[in-house]
């Protein structure tokens, strides 16, 4: 079934997010993965630690000692989920992350794809977008003014009121009494 939709066995295992979560949860409990408490000093040690964290030796830089993080690497946040290129062939396309890629802890919290609104939007609000707000009210107003030329087809005169000089007639026969009709 997987080859029909272009997924290999490797991908169907890797695009699941569970391996990343498991890694994060067990990294401090797994004896093999636990970071060393001592910061590497010599060049060999640094190279070995960089290899352990899947980094180049010149890129490796330990976290400052006040973090009490041992030899864990200090990396910059990779940025927001939507800032990363969607066209790259990631091991975890849902997270836009590769296997064993060193990442900043904030990448999984602050820059998660479900978190939005921490920085101004990249797309500027232009006059065109603002004018789009006027579409609906403009339609209503133009419709009202366009229909204003038509008179409603209510088959009746507006009700007349008694005026001093005017005489309004009812539809009753005049009986010659000289009295008007009073409803």
């Amino acid at each position, binding site marked *: 079934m997987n080859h029909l939709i272009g997924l290999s066995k490797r991908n169907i295992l890797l695009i699941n997010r569970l391996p990343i979560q498991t890694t994060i949860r067990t990294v401090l409990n797994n004896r093999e993965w636990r970071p060393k408490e001592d910061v590497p000093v010599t060049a060999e040690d640094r190279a070995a630690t960089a290899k352990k964290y899947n980094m180049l030796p010149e890129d490796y830089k330990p976290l400052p000692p006040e973090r009490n993080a041992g030899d864990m690497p200090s990396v910059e946040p990779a940025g927001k989920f939507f800032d990363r290129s969607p066209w790259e062939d990631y091991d975890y396309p849902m997270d836009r992350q590769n296997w064993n890629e060193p990442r900043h802890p904030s990448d999984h919290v602050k820059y998660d794809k479900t978190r939005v609104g921490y920085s101004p939007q990249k797309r500027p609000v232009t006059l065109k977008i603002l004018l789009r707000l006027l579409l609906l009210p403009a339609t209503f107003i133009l419709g009202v003014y366009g229909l204003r030329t038509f*008179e409603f*087809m209510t*088959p*009746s*005169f507006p009700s007349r009121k008694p005026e001093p000089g005017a005489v309004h007639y*009812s*539809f009753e026969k005049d009986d010659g009494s000289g009295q*008007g009709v009073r*409803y």
Partner: protein
Amino acid sequence: MGLNISGSLDRARHPERYPEKAKGPTFDPMYGFPDGRKPKAAPYTQEEMQLLNIPLDKRDYCAHYFRAVMICTQQYWPSQYGYCEPERHAWEQCEIKNKIDDAKEYERELRLRRRRLRKEEKAQQTSTHNDEIASNEE
């Protein structure tokens, strides 16, 4: 709704075939009434209506009914809806009669207008017919 829209379009297209609502009836009110018509009697004069505190939009030919509603409302406040229904009903019936009279007036105006148009058209036709006959004889 469809009738209303189509009627509005027809009125906009042929304004001479419909009464002008703002102008009111234009024909002689007694035309076609050999026995005459009773005029409507105003219940109060303008000064009386002002004295009786009748609202401006209620100063029509049913003002006396509305005056009864006002008095009943003042008497039975705040339970006027339980006691003043007969007065209110009488006032509404009067208003309905007035509206029916207005509609009749409109219908009369409309029919007389169309009759006049038909007469003019017929006169036009006969006059052109006579002219043709006269030119043929020459």
